[in-house]
């Protein structure tokens, strides 16, 4: 197969570096031009950050298009229409570096919880700051802030793992996502992300491209009713634990099925 040849691989290393350079330069460029202008375009911070979020989403669509056009990846989105409604609480697993790029590209207006380290990243701090994303460093105030954002009809996106999945280790979720759903009294919208062969995962440098071009499947699931876990009358901390366990089981099954399907579909000769 030509696609897995040495030349192709070298091309993908180069093109990946090129794409990420574009991403970084684009983020800095936009971070000093369009995004601040949009942010200052309204005195209402919600209107202003929604405008920036739409612009960031458009930038992500350009970036996905760039990576696809350069032959770095293929992808498919299943159930995209389910992301159209506002005020959704999206939770996704986090296998690769660019999961958030896909998700933000699919959701024009969404608040994201961003881990503290990225606020210090010289490239990522700009979209994160201007789009009004939420830092995970605020501790107990974070859950309340997220719940009120959802109550106000904004959409929110969280990776409950808190960082990328460690391949080969059992899926582990922090409890924040469950705590937010319980505090907001809302459903969770699960999104299962898989990549085959795996690339850009935790502990893997960007230039270590896989033998053949990776394919992403992003599938939007049906709502998980989080508040069911409060109906049993358990104290909230216990309900948050049980909901988190239920989420891990849901994602375990969903990821395994999705990866299994991808592997049979891409079997050599198939």
């Amino acid at each position, binding site marked *: 197969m030509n696609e897995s040849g040495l030349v192709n691989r070298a091309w993908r290393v180069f093109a990946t570096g090129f794409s990420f350079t574009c991403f970084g330069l684009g983020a800095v460029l936009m971070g000093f031009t369009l995004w601040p202008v949009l942010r200052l375009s309204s005195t209402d911070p919600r209107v202003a950050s929604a405008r920036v979020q739409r612009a960031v989403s458009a930038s992500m669509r350009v970036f996905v298009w760039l990576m696809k056009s350069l032959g770095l990846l293929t992808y498919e989105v299943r159930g995209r229409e389910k992301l159209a409604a506002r005020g959704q609480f999206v939770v996704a697993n986090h296998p690769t570096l660019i999961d958030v790029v896909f998700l933000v590209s699919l959701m024009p207006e969404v608040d994201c919880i961003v881990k503290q380290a990225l606020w210090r990243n010289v490239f990522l701090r700009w979209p994160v700051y201007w789009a009004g994303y939420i830092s995970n460093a605020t*501790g*107990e105030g974070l*859950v309340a802030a997220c719940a009120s954002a959802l109550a106000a009809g904004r959409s929110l996106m969280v990776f409950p793992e808190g960082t990328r999945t460690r391949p080969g280790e059992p899926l582990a979720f*922090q*409890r*924040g996502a469950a*705590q937010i759903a319980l505090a907001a009294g809302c459903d969770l919208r699960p999104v299962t992300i898989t990549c085959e062969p795996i690339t850009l995962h935790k502990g893997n440098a960007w230039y270590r491209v896989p033998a053949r071009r990776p394919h992403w499947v992003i599938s939007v699931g049906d709502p998980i009713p989080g508040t069911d876990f409060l109906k049993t009358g358990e*104290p*909230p*901390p*216990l309900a*948050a*634990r049980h909901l988190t366990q239920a989420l891990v089981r849901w994602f375990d099954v969903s990821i395994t099925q999705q990866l299994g399907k991808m592997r049979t579909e891409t079997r050599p000769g198939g």
Partner: protein
Amino acid sequence: MQSTEEIFEQLRGVLNELFEIDPSRVTLEAHLYNDLEIDSIDTIDLILRLKELTGRKIQPDQFRHVRTVGDAVNAIHALIQNKPAAA
């Protein structure tokens, strides 16, 4: 007056009731966050429950330096011993 031993046993009960933590994991040396996975949100519920049990006002500040179960026992002990019942 409760001894630290009694407070420790009571805390074990509370941790099991609120967080389903197996009492055998609750030792004085156990770290609340690292070993027992009690996060900042849990701490709020824990303090509320301790308020009910002790009948004392508890300021989150009094638990700021609590890291281990032993620290928590000492903090509760000090609270019961030194502070008059909350008005």
